[in-house]
């Protein structure tokens, strides 16, 4: 046994020696760090926790929300949604005019903007960007719908951009297309080439920040663009740190590892309130939650698809269902109060286009009235309390939703209860996201919990309910939300699309929402609040959109990160995340040595008598 002891002693000796050998290194590193900290001009760093994925950064093809957001930080657009109202405001284009026939748009491009490599930004760059999208199929991947209707794009001089469209297009003052430098992108023949993600390409930009480092799946690092035409941001460096788990990100905020976080759940948001040095921000969001009713959906060839229960073709039944669902309870109990009551499909954040049903048309929550309506419509209650349709079919409906989303789980419970109260039995079928997509695309549902994020331009939210939005016979080829197809709605949709007078257009947009509402093909439950939190000890304020109560990160613009104001040079100074590395590793090794040594000692003390020599 002695030689075992001596071996253990040797191991401990080696480990201890190793640890001691590293201590001077730790000392040096700590000293270096101290010197580093004493330097007066520490860069001010804004660290943002990113909890959604980035596919890649090529602005022509990048589709995921976080990737397009990066595009907003580094590239300027012709116009962008304003900070105060999220309405079209000047960016690269100082001003714009339309011809009397509304088919020709002339943008005056500002002359004081520069690319980060020093070259001037001109109208020719914008013309190149749009023409590349017109001539190259791959360039249309991300934002092709904005140019689908373009006839020609020219730049008669460095300060003028002229776009001619085939038909009137109301979204012309908010083209959500980042403008790229021609001298960098023109030589790139294949836009699918992974090299388009290299810093030599996406590092040349003209937005408030310039990308300086991109470690895929880990982080992105930007420096403030000192030559930005609006003026340099107040922070020197922006970091987007990728978190796969929101709980870990929340923990990182508490521990000061990140400065801002969004997409919090109501529970996380509540837990962060009142925490020292943390401020929370509850803002109106741009997403709506709803329940879709399968009213007998059809594909774009007008052929019935899916296996929806045919009883839902009856508008009276759909209205009774809508009346038996209480959005207020969903907002209060499921959303923890962090949502706004639902109406039309465009949320109140876009106030110009938002529509709420007038009191006399609203399907107000009223179980008794819904029961009466069903009685009158001939839906007779059976022995078990479940109604039978006039044709003899029992009112048994399936309700599908996301299995992994607490909102869907709890909403399904409430809705099942309410519908049971009006004599409808509900079978909950909560499934994976992919399965849910397949089911809803193929029309294989009766009731489905769904929802979409909307844009400042109302076109997208409305297009989700047009006849053309419906999929083809294979269940593919378009994006519909409700499968709605109604000539009256489509006519209103077409009118708003070609109307360039803002007030008149808003009128059509609201009428379209009213028409959709009247057919009870969906029940908009609520508009999510965007729940965010930030380190108030490091940042005193951010520019919100819309003002004064908007969001910091979930914006259609760069205002939040551009308008971030550090709370004071000392607190906001970037305390390097990896600065204590050496010290902590050494401490870790010491702890391990102590533990292992302790374990060995305990092991030896615990020996039974017959094991001793």
């Amino acid at each position, binding site marked *: 046994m002695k030689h075992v002891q001596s071996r253990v002693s040797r191991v401990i000796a080696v480990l201890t020696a190793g640890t001691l050998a590293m201590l001077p290194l730790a000392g040096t590193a700590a000293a270096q760090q101290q010197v580093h900290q004493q330097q007066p001009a520490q860069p001010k760093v804004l660290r943002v926790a990113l909890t959604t994925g980035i596919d890649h950064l090529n602005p022509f093809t990048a589709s995921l929300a976080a990737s397009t957001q990066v595009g907003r930080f580094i590239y300027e657009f012709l116009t962008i949604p304003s900070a105060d109202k999220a309405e079209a405001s000047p960016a690269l284009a100082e001003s714009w005019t339309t011809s009397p026939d509304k088919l020709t748009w002339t943008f005056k491009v500002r002359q004081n903007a520069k690319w980060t490599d020093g070259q001037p930004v001109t109208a020719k760059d914008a013309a190149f960007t749009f023409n590349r999208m017109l001539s190259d199929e791959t360039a249309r991947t991300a934002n092709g719908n904005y140019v689908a209707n373009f006839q020609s794009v020219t730049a008669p001089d460095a300060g003028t951009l002229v776009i001619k469209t085939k038909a009137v297009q109301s979204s012309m003052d908010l083209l959500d297309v980042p403008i790229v430098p021609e001298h960098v992108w023109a030589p790139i023949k294949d836009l699918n080439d992974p090299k388009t993600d290299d810093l030599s390409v996406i590092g040349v930009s003209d937005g408030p920040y310039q990308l300086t480092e991109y470690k895929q799946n880990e982080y992105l690092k930007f420096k403030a663009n000192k030559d930005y035409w609006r003026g340099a941001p107040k922070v020197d460096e922006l970091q987007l740190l990728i978190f796969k788990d929101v709980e870990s990100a929340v923990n990182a905020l508490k521990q000061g590892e990140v400065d801002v976080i969004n997409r919090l759940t109501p529970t996380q948001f509540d837990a962060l309130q009142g925490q020292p040095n943390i401020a929370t921000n509850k803002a109106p969001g741009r997403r709506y939650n709803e329940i879709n009713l399968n009213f007998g959906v059809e594909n774009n060839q007008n052929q019935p698809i899916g296996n929806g229960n045919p009883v839902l073709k009856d508008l009276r039944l759909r209205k009774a269902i809508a009346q038996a669902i209480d959005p207020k309870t969903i907002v209060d109990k499921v959303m923890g109060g962090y949502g706004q009551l639902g109406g039309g499909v465009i949320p109140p954040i876009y106030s110009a286009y938002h529509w709420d049903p007038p009191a006399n048309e609203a399907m107000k929550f009223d179980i008794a009235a819904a029961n009466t309506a069903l009685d009158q419509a001939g839906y007779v209650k059976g022995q078990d309390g479940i109604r039978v349709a006039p044709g003899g079919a029992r009112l048994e409906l399936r309700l599908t939703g996301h299995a992994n989303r607490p909102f869907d789980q709890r909403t399904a419970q409430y809705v099942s209860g309410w519908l049971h109260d009006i004599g409808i039995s509900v079978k909950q079928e909560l499934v994976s996201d992919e399965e849910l997509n397949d089911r809803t695309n193929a029309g294989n549902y009766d009731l489905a919990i769904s929802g979409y994020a909307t844009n400042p331009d109302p076109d997208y939210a409305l297009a989700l309910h047009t006849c053309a939005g419906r999929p083809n016979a294979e269940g593919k080829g378009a*994006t519909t939300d409700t499968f709605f197809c109604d000539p009256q709605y489509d006519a209103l949709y077409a009118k708003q699309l070609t109307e360039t007078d803002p007030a008149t257009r808003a009128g059509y947009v609201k009428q379209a929402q009213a028409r959709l509402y009247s057919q009870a093909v969906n029940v908009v439950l609520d508009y999510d609040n965007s729940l965010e939190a930030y380190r108030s000890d490091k940042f005193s304020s951010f520019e919100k959109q819309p003002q004064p109560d908007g969001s910091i990160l979930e914006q259609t613009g760069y205002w939040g990160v551009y308008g971030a104001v550090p709370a004071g040079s000392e607190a906001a100074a970037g305390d390097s995340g990896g600065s204590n590395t050496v010290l902590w590793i050494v401490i870790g090794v010491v702890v391990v040595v102590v533990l292992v040594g302790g374990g060995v000692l305990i092991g030896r003390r615990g020996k039974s008598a017959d094991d001793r020599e």
Partner: protein
Amino acid sequence: MSQAFTSGQASALVDPDQRRGGTGTLRFILTKVAEAAASIVLVIVLGFFLFRLLPGDPVAFMVRERPTDPHQIAELRQQLGIDKPVLAQFGNYFVGLFRGDFGTSYIERRPVIDMIGERLWPTVLLVGSATVLAIALGLWLGIRAAWKRDSFFDRAQTGIALTLWSVPQFWLGLLLLVVTNGVFPSRGMHSPDAGPGFFAQGLDVLHHLVLPCVTLLAVFYAQYMLVMRSSLLGEMNADYLTTARAKGLREDMVRRHHAVPNALLPTVTLVFMQFGMVVSGAVTVEAVFSWPGLGQLTYDALHGPDLPVLQGVFVVLAGAVVLMNMLAELLYRVLDPRVRTA
């Protein structure tokens, strides 16, 4: 696991080739290699068609909540090559594999082989280091627990191991994050603030490695400990130990030179099987610590679904398991003289 192995060996015992000495060994090796190759081909074929049964439409995932018109969607399908018949897609895929081309990711638009390459190293580093430490700790504790069976040490160690083994990895990870209170970084493998140079970068990675590695270690070591303990217990009443003691050998000599080597055999199998799984990563721990490994890649790819990535990962993972199984079988023949001379 050890049982399956034993029955596999039982059939090897009656293999007539085994009795022919040198040629038999060569033949045995060739057979095992051929079996492994056949398994990998089967994996490629199965992987391709099985993933096509997955629900979800990659294009629908890519365009969701983005203004897109039907024409754009059709173009996207064509770009991704998913407008072609499945058999044609399979043909392209199979031919591509032999040129080392695993296809291009639908979502990231990059070669799958590059993406797997980038993610393989972090996973091997994390799961590999946790596995090596878990083996060392597990075997050490397992041997001591068995040798002192029914003692307080044995009962305490078995209890701790069983508890940690049944704790959900993500929960333990989050707990460690909270308890360590920012001492170790909570995400990723690199810090944007790490200085330049190999030394600084290396230390930075080590710093990030601590928490995920400890989490995995805590969960992993139990199985090695329990297997080692039970197989050593199985040997402890064997006659040859009595003989060894009768020869006057010291107790620790009996343990280290007689009991442990024999009890190690089932553990070796377990170790090799686990090494095959090293590349598959630990999805939940990688998620909690945002560790950029293969587990995360697979999880993200499932959401598209990003079929080329899933297929590529499947082939690499299955290949690693097949290879390690083959090595385990070959090594077992070297380690256990009874198999060779039978």
